């Protein structure tokens, strides 16, 4: 969500440049040659499972870890020689790391106390008050952190990391410590707040929903490597590798050999038609990813699908009814399970198929995504 409305100048596209950054712990590569450019006032999410290196990358941006190789340039300044306590970055920690012996306002003021030359008392007080107002925590200024709820602690932590007006705000799993209900509400609150302040922000999360809700662009990481960078739509609809396809959302993956524009797959009764724009090498190994909501489900007796469709018949093995939609696991004759997500509205006229019913699964060739790695 690149903003350029409230300020006249266009945000710079490579406000933060990460160039070939590598970090090794003992004999594992935690971060492996990551390069990335982030625009001013962008909200960017690093998405990956635990241990994929996303937090290490964030800590290198904060200066809490040193890269073994590569450069980090923020607003034209190489951060390599700048220690954590002099960097124009501030981080919100996963545990919030609120100082237990300080009150809420002292926590928020802590970063301002460190400014050199010293800030006037009145200025610190004014900025703390403004920050607390921003996160609507004025009422709790004199409380100690342990007297706050998780959501309140999160807001104080945010106020503390914004108080110094950092050039780069780093959020480490910002909402992981909250209950699911509060989390969903807080996601949008947080985005609104960050956009209002207009700070460039990198957040790290393992929760794809959080990344997609909050960030303008997402970088998917696995085993220390940055696999794909794109908007949430691009990441979900056109993954560039199997990891992204499977990590972000659910998918049906078919593995086979490409021959004459079709994928010959042992799991599927017929050669699978590929989207026309896909251009894999003939004879090479490839995967096809089909999202469950792209798979149509009908009773086996109904009229067969038209041309340009991949279809197969099987029986219903599992049904998970989720209200707005149901997830069907359909077992084909050869044992392969195909997952179809069917909107509840589809069964307005007829009873939905149930366990053991013979059904047909089908999808249009252009709805698949061909993956070669």
């Amino acid at each position, binding site marked *: 969500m690149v903003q350029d409305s409230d300020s006249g100048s266009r945000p710079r596209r490579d406000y933060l440049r990460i160039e070939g950054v590598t970090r090794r712990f003992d004999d594992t590569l935690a971060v492996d040659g990551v390069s990335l450019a982030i625009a001013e006032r962008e909200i960017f999410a690093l998405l990956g499972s635990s241990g994929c290196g996303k937090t290490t990358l964030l800590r290198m941006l904060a*200066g809490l870890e040193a890269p073994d190789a590569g450069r980090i340039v923020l607003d034209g300044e190489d951060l*390599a*020689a700048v*220690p954590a306590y002099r960097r124009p970055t501030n981080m919100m920690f996963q545990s919030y790391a609120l100082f237990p012996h300080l009150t809420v306002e002292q926590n928020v003021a802590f970063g301002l106390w460190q400014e050199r030359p010293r800030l006037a008392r009145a200025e610190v007080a004014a900025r703390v008050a403004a920050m607390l107002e921003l996160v609507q925590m004025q009422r709790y200024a004199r409380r100690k952190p342990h007297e706050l709820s998780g959501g309140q602690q999160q807001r104080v932590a945010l106020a503390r990391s914004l108080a110094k007006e950092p050039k780069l705000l780093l959020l480490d799993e910002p909402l992981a410590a909250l209950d699911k209900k509060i989390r969903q509400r807080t996601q949008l609150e947080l985005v609104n707040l960050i956009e209002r302040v207009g700070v460039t922000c990198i957040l790290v999360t393992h929760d794809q929903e959080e990344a997609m809700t909050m960030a303008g662009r997402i970088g998917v990481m696995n085993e220390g490597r940055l696999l794909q960078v794109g908007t949430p739509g691009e990441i979900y609809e056109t993954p560039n590798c199997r990891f992204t396809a499977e990590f972000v959302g659910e998918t049906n993956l078919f593995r086979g050999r490409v021959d004459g524009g079709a994928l010959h797959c042992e799991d599927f009764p017929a050669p699978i038609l590929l989207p026309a724009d896909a251009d894999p090498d003939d004879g090479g190994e490839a995967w096809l990813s089909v999202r469950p909501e792209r798979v149509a489900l009908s009773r086996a007796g109904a009229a067969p699908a038209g041309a340009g469709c991949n279809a197969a018949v099987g029986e219903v093995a599992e049904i998970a009814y989720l209200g707005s939609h149901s997830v069907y696991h359909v077992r084909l004759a050869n044992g392969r399970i195909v997952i179809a997500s069917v909107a509840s509205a589809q069964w307005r006229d007829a009873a939905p198929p149930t366990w053991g019913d013979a059904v047909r699964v089908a999808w249009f060739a252009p709805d698949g995504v061909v993956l070669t790695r």
Partner: protein
Amino acid sequence: MKRARCFLLRGHFWVGLLPWAWMLLFFALPFALILKVSLSTPELAVPPYVSPFVLEPGAALPHFRPDLASYRRLHDELRALGLAGADLQYLAAWGGSLLLAALTTLLCLVIGYPFAYHIARSREAARNTLLMLVMLPFWTSFLLRVYAWMSLLDSSELGLINRLLLAAGLVDAPLQLLYNRGAVLVGMVYSYLPFMVLPLYANLVKLDQRLLEAAADLGAQPWMTFLRVTLPLSRRGIVAGAMLVFIPAVGEFVIPDLLGGGDVLMIGRKIWDDFGPNQDWPMAAAVAVTMVLVLIVPIALLHRHGRANGNGAQR
């Protein structure tokens, strides 16, 4: 960043320097001296021994001439074991110490386990007070608590227990309660009980009540639940408590000195006597070396189980 790391490393070095230097000077070096003195010859001098490192005229480095007499004496007693009329004072002292320490540990466990268990199972509000009451005697003077037993066990008709017994007509003459092994055992159990109760409590209070309910749900009788669930799960607490009692009990000197008669030989007392009245420092040092060697096994046990017990408390 590189500079910051260097600074931190340097900082750590300076922080570590003080404790390293202190422990080398006041712990490691003194232990090396014990080893050295145990290989020396006693002599009437200040200090009362002759170093085994002899600097001969003309030699650049001193010669090492250990005097093994102290160890030989212990060895001779071992060899004379079973012979009639042999002088086995050190071996007897060792035996007495180990026996008393083992008995103390056992009694502390028997008294302390149900005690700690019931504290851990009492109402949460009461636990704090109950635990504090266990700690309280521990924070008051150790010597005075032993003294309390001196007046309780006094063997004349003035001793408190004897007065009770005489008044109740249970005995005709005062019993010889003080200055024997029994008195020492009572005093040791009394003094060391908190050492057993606290680690056991720390362990038992973490015991998940739901496990006991699960065992009951699966049809186990209460005693079976105790044997198969509670006891195995508290093993670490038992080992930690037992070692915390056993190790200091082996070296105990004050309690046998105050409550035990002249015939209650204990190895801690032997060291004290050799060091004090007998002025045989090499012998005292040699006995101390054997004591450290004997106690290495329980100390290692304590280290392994105690550590795990403590870590469990944080989980």
